[in-house]
C-alpha cells in the first residue's frame, strides 16, 4: 500500500499558510502534508497546527538563488528525519512542492504513482534535461569550479561520471528510498538546487524521468500561466501561482 507525503516549502506568514493548507486539503489528506518552513523563526511559531518543520539552513535563504547556489539540502534532511519517525514509516513516496506549485487534481498521488511505475523510475521531475558540455548557463557557471567534476566522480556509481542534469525545482516526485539516500548524501560542494538534486540522484544510481506532458503549465515565469488554462490543458499541477 503506497502513501505519499506532500512536502511543501513555504515562507509566508500564518494567514497565507492557512490559505495554502485549505487549497492542499482539497487534494490531499491533511495528515499527508508537511510544511517545510523557510520563513522567520518568529512567524514559524504562529503557524496553524499542522505537521511542520522549521528549516534552519542558511543555504536556503540566499540573496541570489542562482548565483549564490541555493540549496534544498536542509529541506531534504528535515524531510528525511520526519520520514524516519516511527509514526511515518508508512510513507512510501514524497511529493515535494514549493508553495506556488499547486495541485489541480484530487487524485494527484495516484497519478504520480502510476506515472512513476509506467516510467520504471525512482524520481519524476519537470523539465528534466542533460546539460553537460552545453552552453547552459548553470552548467557553465558550475563547471568553472574545479571541484564540481571531482565531486560527481567521487560519488558516482555510473559508468559516465560527467553527466550533469538539471530539473525545474518547484516540484518533483520521489520514492522514499531515493529521497532518503539523497538526503543522506553530504553536500560537499555548493551546487544550485536545480542541478544538485537531479545530478546527485542520477549519480547515486536512481532513474529520473521527465514529466513530459505535465511540463506545459510548470514554468519559471507566470506569464501565460493561470489555473484555468492549466485545468483546460489537463495539467495535474500548476506553477507559479503566487496568490490563492
Amino acid at each position, binding site marked *: 500500500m503506497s502513501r505519499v507525503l506532500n512536502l511543501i516549502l513555504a515562507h509566508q506568514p500564518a494567514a497565507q499558510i492557512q490559505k495554502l493548507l485549505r487549497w492542499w486539503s482539497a487534494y490531499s489528506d491533511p495528515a499527508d502534508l508537511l510544511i517545510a518552513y523557510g520563513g522567520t523563526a518568529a512567524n514559524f511559531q504562529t503557524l496553524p497546527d499542522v505537521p511542520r518543520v522549521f528549516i534552519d539552513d542558511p543555504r536556503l535563504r540566499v540573496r541570489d538563488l542562482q548565483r549564490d547556489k541555493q540549496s534544498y539540502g536542509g529541506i531534504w534532511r528535515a524531510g528525511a528525519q520526519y520520514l524516519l519517525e516511527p509514526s511515518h514509516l508508512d510513507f512510501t513516496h514524497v511529493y515535494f512542492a514549493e508553495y506556488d506549485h499547486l495541485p489541480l487534481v484530487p487524485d494527484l498521488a495516484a497519478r504520480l504513482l502510476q506515472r512513476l511505475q509506467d516510467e520504471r*523510475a525512482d524520481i519524476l521531475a519537470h523539465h528534466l534535461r542533460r546539460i553537460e558540455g552545453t*552552453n547552459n*548557463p548553470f552548467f557553465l557557471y558550475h563547471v568553472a569550479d574545479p571541484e564540481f567534476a571531482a565531486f560527481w566522480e567521487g560519488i558516482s556509481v555510473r559508468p559516465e561520471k560527467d553527466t550533469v542534469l538539471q530539473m525545474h525545482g518547484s516540484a518533483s516526485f520521489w520514492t522514499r528510498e531515493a529521497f532518503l539516500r539523497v538526503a543522506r548524501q553530504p553536500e560537499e560542494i555548493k551546487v544550485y538546487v536545480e542541478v544538485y538534486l537531479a545530478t546527485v540522484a542520477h549519480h547515486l*544510481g536512481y*532513474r529520473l524521468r*521527465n514529466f513530459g506532458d505535465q511540463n506545459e503549465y510548470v514554468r519559471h515565469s507566470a506569464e501565460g500561466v493561470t489555473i484555468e488554462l492549466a485545468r483546460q490543458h489537463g495539467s495535474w499541477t500548476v506553477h507559479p501561482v503566487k496568490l490563492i
Partner: protein
Amino acid sequence: MSKIKMKLLRPLALGLINLLASDIRDVRTGEIIGRALLLPWRGRILFFGTSPDLLPIFRPQTQMVQWRSTLGFTKHPSPDFPHEPRS
C-alpha cells in the same frame, strides 16, 4: 540604479542580437533549436543569444575534405538512464 539600467538595456541588447542573429539548426535532425549571433574573437567563438542547452559538435562529412569542416550544434536526448544498482 544599475538594476534599472540593466532592466532597460537588457531587452534592447537582446533585441539587437536577435535582429543580427541567425537560426541554429540541429546538425543531426535539421530542426531549428535556437537563434544566436556567433562572432569569432581571438581564437574563440563568442555566442550571443539566450538559446540554452546547445551542444557544439562538428558536423559529419560525406566527403573527405581536409581544408573545411562545419561546427554546428545539437541537443542531448531526454535523460533515459537505467536504475543503476550500487556496487
